[in-house]
C-alpha cells in the first residue's frame, strides 16, 4: 500500500487531501505508472494528472522525486504544484 497526499489546487480539485493505493503484486511501478492509474479514476483525476492540468511536482517519503522514480509499498507519495512560499 502507498499513502498518497495532495496539496494546494490538486487537493481542491480532487476533493481529498490523502488516499491509500494498493500496489500491483507484480513489478515496481514508477511515479508515472501511478499517475497513469490515477487518471483512470474519473474526470477530476484526468484533469489534474493530464498534460495541461498544470505543472505537478512529486515527492516520495518527503524527498523530491522524478516521474520515473520507483514507488515501493509503504512509501508516502505526495503530489503538489511548484512551491510558492517565502
Amino acid at each position, binding site marked *: 500500500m502507498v499513502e498518497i497526499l495532495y496539496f494546494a489546487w490538486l487537493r481542491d480539485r480532487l476533493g481529498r487531501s490523502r488516499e491509500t493505493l494498493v500496489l500491483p503484486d507484480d513489478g515496481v511501478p514508477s511515479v508515472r505508472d501511478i499517475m497513469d492509474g490515477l487518471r483512470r479514476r474519473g474526470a477530476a483525476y484526468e484533469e489534474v494528472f493530464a498534460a495541461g492540468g498544470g505543472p505537478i511536482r512529486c515527492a516520495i517519503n*518527503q524527498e523530491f522525486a522524478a516521474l520515473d522514480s520507483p514507488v515501493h509499498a509503504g512509501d508516502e507519495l*505526495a503530489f503538489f*504544484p511548484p512551491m*510558492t*512560499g*517565502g
Partner: protein
Amino acid sequence: MLVDIRVQEEGFSLDAELARLAGVGLDVGGIGLFMGLVRGDGGLAALVLEHYPGMTESMIARIVAQAGTRFGLLACTVIHRVGRLPVGAPIVLVLCAAAHRGAALEATEFVIDWLKTQAPFWKREEFPDGQGRWVAARESDEAAAARWGMDGPTES
C-alpha cells in the same frame, strides 16, 4: 551553528529572535535579515499559506545547513508562517549571523532564494469578494535560486 527553524501560525518579534542569539558568543559581527510581507497587490485581502508538514522542516533544515557551511554562519533562524495572513502581515523571517557582513547578507539571500523554490509551501490569494486563487510559481524565483550555481540543497 545555532539553528532555529519554525513553521507556525503566530507572528514573531525580531527583538526576541535577536535575543535568542545571545548564546552564540562574541564572534558575531554582522546579522543579515530578510522579512517577507503580504503585499496588497490588486486588492488582495489575505494570503492563506499551506505546507507539507515534516517535509517543510527537513527541506529548510537542509537549506540552512548548506548556507551554514558555504558562508560560515554562526547562527541561522528561519520562521515561516502558515494559515491566513492579512495584507501587511509578515510571512517569513530569515536571519543569518556571521563574523562579517558579506557572509551574513549573502547567506540571507541564499536561504530565502532556495526556500522559495525548495520548501513545500503554497499560497492562496483571498480577495474581499470571497474569491480565491492559488498563486502560480514565478520563473524569476527559479532563476534567483539557480544563480547560486547548484542544482539545489535537495541534491546534497
